[in-house]
């Protein structure tokens, strides 16, 4: 099947408007006759569910957590981009579009990104109207900050909890519709398969995680908003429950999976402390606004620090290597995430790492504290040479800006980041790849849509900071509600979809068989045992830097691990009730397939771009080397029974509005 991205014709800035003017609409009376299933209630799913219900559709929403408010969008800290240009620093829709395409290393679909930039301003208006308490200045107007990969201040934020506040906004919009009966909420339910009737997505099979019951739910369309697959690495900044099952199940039923190898490794996470580690904690990228990143300039100092013989503050300015400022003078500490992460890895691999494991760099606020302190001293008429007073004042300012993050760091590491620099190291954070969707956000299964992190469309090979929240809400509030109407318009007279068809029967049987197999396996190892092993293979061989040999090894190892998993996994308890081990098993089973496809995709992409770095393809000074001639396409994989048999389909990326150049942050 040839991929049709359905990008509307016309100049890029008019595409979305023209498109909206000409699509088919469903009249309000008919929307009442249409059901839509939304799987996942994060920013994308929550906002989509609320908006679809407002429009009049009957929404059935599903989340595996005990409340839609707990979706992992809640953990996003830093902010949300929007081309409001409130700061008057030259921002515009085009600039946001341009920065996003460039930041994504020219592997995103132009038309989608432009639409994203266009609706970005509506998001801020919408959220303020919903009572989202975004940060304000003393004059009462909204405040902005700058984020990596941008030269303007366009990031709106709510202290270090922007994701939480935006999600609670979407959750509140959902609550209004749940109260009105327009959304039927299914908490603690996990989608375990999609049901396709006559070639169209018509329902899902879900497990009630409390009773263990396998349930059939039908609808005229199914929206997948289940987030990313970062947990394939076991250790990531994702929540423990974040999983790819919904996305993977639709892949197995016909939805192509695009660019799985594009994974974002976030540069500012708290380093791993030991083998027991269950997850990694992100420190907001906003910290790079004020923190300076460095490692010791001399190997012997790094060694002394690792052995506990020296401390960071013992090193003079000359003994420190502010490597980002050195390598990228224009952007300095604010280079995009992929660049910052690789630079940290490069230094640590060269032996300059600073914690026990040798995998950490410093993020230092001493300079910022002094700078702010002097500003405050000036305002208050205090002598700027009074170091103690200046430090105190500066610490106050930093505390106001990042207090909750510093406290979080202190609780985890047990070290005071105000007086000694933080230690950070990159960690898996976000997956740009995902189910392939056309301009309508519809997958290759008619009637099955994919929005937010679970699709692939807007971030290309690398996502800029504060863009994930923007994309999730844009898809859910402002894009999908239009495009889904176009799809549903022929179905208005159809009536409810029955759930007793052979297709539902078969899908349910498939789910029950898998669960039966797990429950009766009598293996010897827990699910986590296999998940950790998978994570290690992924991190070591499919992580920040990849090469053909490692990827080939990874493919074989994952495939072998999958076999071992099915032979030897042990699930205690019963499937007729709450069973967290069983939940994990169904998720890890999918990760074990996805991981292999991930490696296969990385192996086929013989270039380096954004979050995908192949050691064979780099410039002399270690920067990513793209190959636009051969790889300016979206790799969409079709499932054929095994990940190794997946068939590649290419969607060529055409750039009209942006000229392809090598990214340069120097």
């Amino acid at each position, binding site marked *: 099947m040839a991929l049709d991205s359905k990008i509307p014709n016309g100049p890029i800035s008019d595409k979305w408007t023209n498109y909206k003017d000409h699509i088919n609409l469903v009249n309000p009376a008919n929307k009442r006759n249409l059901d839509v299933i939304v799987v996942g209630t994060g920013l994308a799913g929550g906002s989509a569910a609320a*908006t679809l219900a*407002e429009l009049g559709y009957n929404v059935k929403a599903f989340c595996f957590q005990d*409340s839609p408010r707990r979706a*992992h969008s809640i953990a996003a800290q830093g902010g949300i981009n929007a081309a409001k240009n409130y700061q008057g620093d030259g921002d515009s829709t085009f600039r946001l579009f341009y920065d996003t395409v460039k930041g994504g290393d020219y592997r995103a679909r132009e038309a989608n990104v432009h639409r994203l930039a266009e609706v970005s301003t*509506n998001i801020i208006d919408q959220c303020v109207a919903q009572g989202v308490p975004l940060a304000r200045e003393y004059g009462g*107007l909204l405040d902005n900050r700058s984020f990596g990969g941008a030269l303007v201040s366009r990031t709106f934020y709510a202290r270090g909890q922007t994701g939480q506040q935006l999600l609670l906004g979407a959750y509140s919009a959902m*609550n209004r519709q749940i109260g009105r009966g327009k959304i039927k909420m299914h908490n603690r339910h996990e989608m375990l398969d999609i049901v396709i009737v006559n070639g169209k997505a018509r329902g899902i099979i879900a497990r009630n995680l409390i009773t263990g019951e396998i349930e059939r739910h039908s609808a005229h369309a199914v929206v997948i908003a289940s987030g990313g697959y970062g947990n394939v690495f076991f250790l990531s900044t994702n929540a423990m429950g974040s999983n790819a099952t919904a996305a993977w199940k639709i892949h197995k039923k016909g939805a192509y999976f695009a660019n799985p190898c594009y994974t974002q490794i976030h540069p500012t996470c708290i380093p791993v402390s030991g083998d027991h580690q269950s*997850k990694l904690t992100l420190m907001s990228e906003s910290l790079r606004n004020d923190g300076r990143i460095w490692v010791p300039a001399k190997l012997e100092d790094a060694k002394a620090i690792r052995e506990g013989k020296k401390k960071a503050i013992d090193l003079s300015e000359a003994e420190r290597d502010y490597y980002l400022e050195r390598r990228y003078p224009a952007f300095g500490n604010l280079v995009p995430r992929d660049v910052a992460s690789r630079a940290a890895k490069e230094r640590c691999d060269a032996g300059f790492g600073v914690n026990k494991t040798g995998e950490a760099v410093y993020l230092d606020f001493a300079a910022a504290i002094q700078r702010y302190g002097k500003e405050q001293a000036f305002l208050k008429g205090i002598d700027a040479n009074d170091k103690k007073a200046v430090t105190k004042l500066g610490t106050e300012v930093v505390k106001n800006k990042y207090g909750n993050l510093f406290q979080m760091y202190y609780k985890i590491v047990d070290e005071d980041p105000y007086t000694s620099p933080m230690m950070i190291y990159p960690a898996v954070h976000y997956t740009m790849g995902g189910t392939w969707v056309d301009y309508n956000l519809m997958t290759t299964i008619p009637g099955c849509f994919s929005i937010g992190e679970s699709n692939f469309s807007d971030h290309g090979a690398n996502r800029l900071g504060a863009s994930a929240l923007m994309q999730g809400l844009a898809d859910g509030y402002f894009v999908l509600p239009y495009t889904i109407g176009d799809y549903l318009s022929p179905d208005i007279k159809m009536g409810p979809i029955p759930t007793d068809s052979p297709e539902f029967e078969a899908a349910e049987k498939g789910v029950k068989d898998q669960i039966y197999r797990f429950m009766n396996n009598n293996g010897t190892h827990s699910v986590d045992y296999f998940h950790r092993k998978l994570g290690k293979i992924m991190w070591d061989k499919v992580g920040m830097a990849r090469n053909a040999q490692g990827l080939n090894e990874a493919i074989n190892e994952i495939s072998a691990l999958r076999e071992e998993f099915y032979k030897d996994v042990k699930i205690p*308890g019963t499937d007729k009730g*709450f069973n967290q081990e069983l939940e994990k098993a169904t998720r890890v089973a999918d990760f074990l397939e996805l991981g292999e496809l991930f490696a296969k995709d990385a192996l086929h992409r013989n270039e380096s771009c954004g979050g995908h770095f192949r050691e064979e393809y780099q410039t002399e000074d270690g920067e990513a080397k793209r190959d636009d001639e051969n790889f300016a396409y979206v790799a969409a994989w079709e499932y054929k029974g095994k990940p190794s048999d997946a068939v590649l389909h290419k969607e060529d990326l055409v750039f009209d509005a942006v000229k392809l150049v090598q990214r340069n942050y120097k």
Partner: protein
Amino acid sequence: MKLTLKIWRQKNAQDKGAMVDYQIDGIEPDMSFLEMLDVFNEDLMSKGGEPVAFDHDCREGICGMCSLFINGEAHGPDRGVTTCQLHMRMFKDGDTITIEPFRAAAFPVVKDLVVNRSAFDRIQHAGGFISVNTSGNTIDANAIPINKQDADDAFDAATCIGCGACVASCKNSSAMLFVAAKVSQYALLPQGKIEATDRVLNMVSQMDAEGFGNCSNTGACEVECPKGISLENIARMNREYLSASMKG
């Protein structure tokens, strides 16, 4: 570290449940409390036992999914943290740790340490929103300036993660702090003032219908709240409620 764990075990909602004693060794101070439970569960499973069910998700103190009443306190002895941020360095070698589910009639136990907190969702359905359609066709975000103090206070109230520690800590199982946080957030913002009357009446009425107890101002909720939500919000809700009752 070597520890004695006293854990509430309950097969399902119908089961009576009981405290069970366990021993665990090899715990490191750098582990988080939930990582300690992970290790404990692995150990339990390797011996053929069924792991202890507990709620958790983000493990960075923001989703509100983790709960646990540890040694007589919601989220354990540390302040300003959720259970997932509690670290074992707060305990000593040889300690006995009692782990119970959050207890309230409105939070029935699902299994072991997992409780059902849907009552919180239902309170939000009753009024935890501003009735504005998500069309995006609202006024410009900067059209109404908001006094910074009000914006900051609204933010402080909005940081509630809905974990239920307030209910669990309250000797009366009252949900006042949770409800007050949402009522306050909206009451402080111009956008929320329009529906303030109905909101507070409806949310309080739903709160009462869920079977939470009454507030007697012990202040335990404020102390145990991982986000430090202030009792001021409860006073504000009381005012809002009184004035709404007069109007309504």
